């Protein structure tokens, strides 16, 4: 019985992240529009976009190989599995032990690897441009992410997200300089990985600046829908990750009653909403960077996270 309940919660979590991903995207867009004194579309617009894409006929370039058709599903699966492993409204999920934070970072890498390959499959200059820039950004963002994982897991003595959340919610964390540095680093990495504004702008089609859009330029219809959904899912994943590590309050633990789960859901919804608002505010207040400023921006994240690890040693009493 307990097993079935745990399985149900795990499945609920998996469906929840997919279901709310477009909503979060729509929410961020609505807030951005409001900040710019525009009306903006409804927050439900991304759902309509996805439906519209799904109904369309897929147009494949003549040169597309089987890889091009498989990649949307592989990328989506990798990101979905990673997202399912991050505790959202409840920690201690059934399969949370099957992978830790390092695996989550690497699964995102899997998704990116295949998407970058798909960008090169058609053999146009845009796809290659997007792929090569994406890999360049990732080559700095990924080590920064791993160093963030290092800092957090050295503090909590574990790489399991559920245990990290429990540790962070506990009393013996205290205020640490390292955690502040790591938070900044993780935010920078999240911006880069999600192709958000100072790094990339998925809303434009300007050759000089685009990264992610260039890579998926040749996709259409259901394939594009999968990729868009995966991108939205990634944003949910990062927000959940930040929430889980830095504000792990209100999460239900394994074996809690229904009330705790409902409370967890409300807390999670609030966290995502606040995260979305902050993201929108940040994006409207900053300009897009030149592509070759991005490594410097990400290098700051890498340095901060490395500094956080080293500070951890100095600050900890023996």
């Amino acid at each position, binding site marked *: 019985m307990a097993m079935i309940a745990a399985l149900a919660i795990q499945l609920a979590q998996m469906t929840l992240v997919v279901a709310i991903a477009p909503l979060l995207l729509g929410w961020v867009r609505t807030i951005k529009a409001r900040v710019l004194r525009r009306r903006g579309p409804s927050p439900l617009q991304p759902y309509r976009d996805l439906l519209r894409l*799904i109904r369309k*006929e*897929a*147009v*494949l*370039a*003549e*040169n*597309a190989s*089987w*890889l091009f058709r498989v990649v949307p*599903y*592989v990328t*989506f699966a990798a990101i*979905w*599995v990673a997202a*399912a492993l991050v505790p959202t409204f409840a920690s201690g999920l059934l*399969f949370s*032990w*099957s*992978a*830790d934070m390092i*695996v989550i970072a*690497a*699964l995102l*890498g*899997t998704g*990116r*690897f295949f998407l970058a*390959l798909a960008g*090169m499959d*058609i*053999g*146009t*200059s845009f796809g*290659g441009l997007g*792929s*090569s820039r994406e*890999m*360049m950004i*990732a*080559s*700095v*963002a*990924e*080590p920064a992410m*791993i*160093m963030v994982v290092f800092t957090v897991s*050295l503090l909590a003595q*574990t*790489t*399991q997200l559920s245990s990290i959340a429990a540790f962070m919610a506990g009393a013996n964390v205290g205020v640490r300089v390292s955690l502040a540095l790591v938070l900044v680093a993780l935010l920078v990495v999240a911006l880069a990985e999600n192709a958000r504004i100072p790094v990339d702008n998925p809303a434009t089609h300007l050759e000089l600046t685009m990264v992610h859009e260039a890579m998926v330029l040749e996709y259409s*219809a*259901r394939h594009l829908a999968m990729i868009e959904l995966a991108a939205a899912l990634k944003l949910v994943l990062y927000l959940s990750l930040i929430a889980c590590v830095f504000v792990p309050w209100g999460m239900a633990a394994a074996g809690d009653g229904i009330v705790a789960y409902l409370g967890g859901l409300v807390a999670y919804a609030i966290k995502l909403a606040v995260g979305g608002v902050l993201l929108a505010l940040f994006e409207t207040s900053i300009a897009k960077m030149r*592509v*070759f400023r991005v490594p410097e921006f990400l290098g700051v994240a890498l340095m901060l996270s*490395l500094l956080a690890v*080293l500070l*951890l*040693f100095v600050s900890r009493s023996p």
Partner: protein
Amino acid sequence: MALLAALVLIASLLLTGLGAVGLGGRPAGRIIVYGAAASACSAMVVLAAITLFGRAPAQDLVLPLGIPWIGAHLRLDPLAAFFLLVVNLGGAAASVYGLGYGRHDSEPQRVLPLFAVFLAAMNMVVLADDAYSFLASWEFMSLASWGLVMAHHRTDGTAQAGCVYLVMAGFGTLALLLCFGLLAGVSGAYAFADIRAAGLSPSIGALVLALTLLGAGSKAGIVPLHVWLPLAHPAAPSHVSALMSGVMTKVAIYGIIRILFDLAGEPAWWWSVVVLVLGGVTAVLGVLYALMQHDIKRLLAYHTVENIGIIVIGLGLALAFRANGMMVPAALAFSAALFHVLNHMLFKSLLFFGAGAVLTATGERDMEHLGGLIHRMPVTAATFLLGCAAISALPPLNGFASEWLTFQAILVSPAVPQWGLKFLIPGVGAGLALSAALAAACFVKAFGITFLGRPRTAAAAQAREVDRFSLAVMSAFALACILTGIVPGLIVDALAPVVSQLTRGTSLPVQSAMPWLTLIPIAAERSSYNGILVLVFMALSGTLAAFAIHRLASRAVRRAPAWDCGFPEASPTTQYTAGSFAQPIRRVFGSLVFVARESVEMPPPGSLKPARFTVSLRDLIWECGYAPLAAGITYAADRVNHLQFLTIRRYLGLVFALLVALLLGIAIWP
């Protein structure tokens, strides 16, 4: 018993080599030699597996060969058994691959005899139990592989590759010779058992460390001794490249482990600092070099440098933990390093086989002349893709499992008492993460430019899938990459006897007893990873998504010209090339490491001259290390050359002066 059987198999390999000399260039020779090598290696794999999994005790044997009254000591212990397994698995695969690939060899009589001897020599190195047999087999291994590098000696660059390889191999053996001299000490007992018993003084220990890293490290390809790899590996036939890169560098790692962890006695903690720094530098520089290459085999060769760096990082961590008496973390780091040894053999051999297939099909090694091969060579493309994903450490494949273990070992490092190590190890961890991320970029480039897009030349457009032997071997290794990736716990268990030999009896908890075959190196609340579940999850969610989409969505598909933002551009030359793919990364990292400079030569308006874009890269290690050294040696040789042309009187005078100096020296010496 197993040891005797192994010796018989090695002897049969040697005989095969001898026989191949007689067979010459006849087509039957290829089948006989590769067939015999494949069966001998397969038998050896079975033998090694039985020894390893059966946890057989170490076996010794002394043969009346080699130096009189000393004989050749041989020993088959778990460490040797594991490396026998790695060597012969790679050897068997390369032999079967050679059955098909060897057909295209223009001069098989140059490859066949040495191929079998090379395999025999690598097996002998692993089994040797005294310094003389070790060095003799090591030298045999070097010379046989040198002969194989020189197989196509008329091709451009091969002669230089052979020269550099010979110099580096000679230098390495010299360093090892001195190293064993120090280890044997005044007693001069060359058997490893005596060396083990003797122990070392700390000052000699430092020298032994330096000489081991120079000697075995030059064979493994540790930066800055890696310069021969990118020259030699592309020059050799592809199945030999696979052997040299996937297997011979592992034999070098075996040498490092045997000397530093087994023979040298108690290590000092600062040894690990040297090893870790070397490992970190090797990993990052190796992959950066690889990213700059357009020749697919050179790229793979440089990538071997990176993976050796990862293995060396694991060994450095093991040293650090063992020197501080932390045996469980040491066992973890060892398991990670040895697991990566196995993984690298699997995916690097697979990738070299794939590169060989591309070479057979198109005659091209330069990625800039390839493209679109996924349409013409589907099986090669699929297996190569798996190899690329595995070497880029993507879950749930095997490269990720061993890197995950290494990361876990790094995370134990705060418990190390020395402050230097505490600060160093996270830095090395950042280097490891950086090299993993760059490796992914590198293999997106390698696969994307070679197999995806549109063909850039006629050769690529008319490529044909290769023979069945090659395809079978590549598929088998691709499958092995998946299998070892999803059950890492079983591999860690299999490594337990080897690890406990190196950590004085400590090993990790038995992983096969863990629920769901989860990999739990230390404690469940600390970290765990389950490859099977990750694979099943990914497969399920991918299928579910595909199923749902195909049920709900429009299934219509239309083929049309590429949209490309509305540019109807037909020429395949407008695609991204390997150079352009690497350009952003070159700008980020290259200006520091390679002093990369880009220059654009724009003709004035009206001129019909083409505009030129040139990139200059400088190999600082070669320019600042090797080139001045070579110049110095040439200069000194020129000076000393005069001694050749003296008169007899001057020679006599010289001898007399030397004699006086010697006698004086003896007289003054207290």
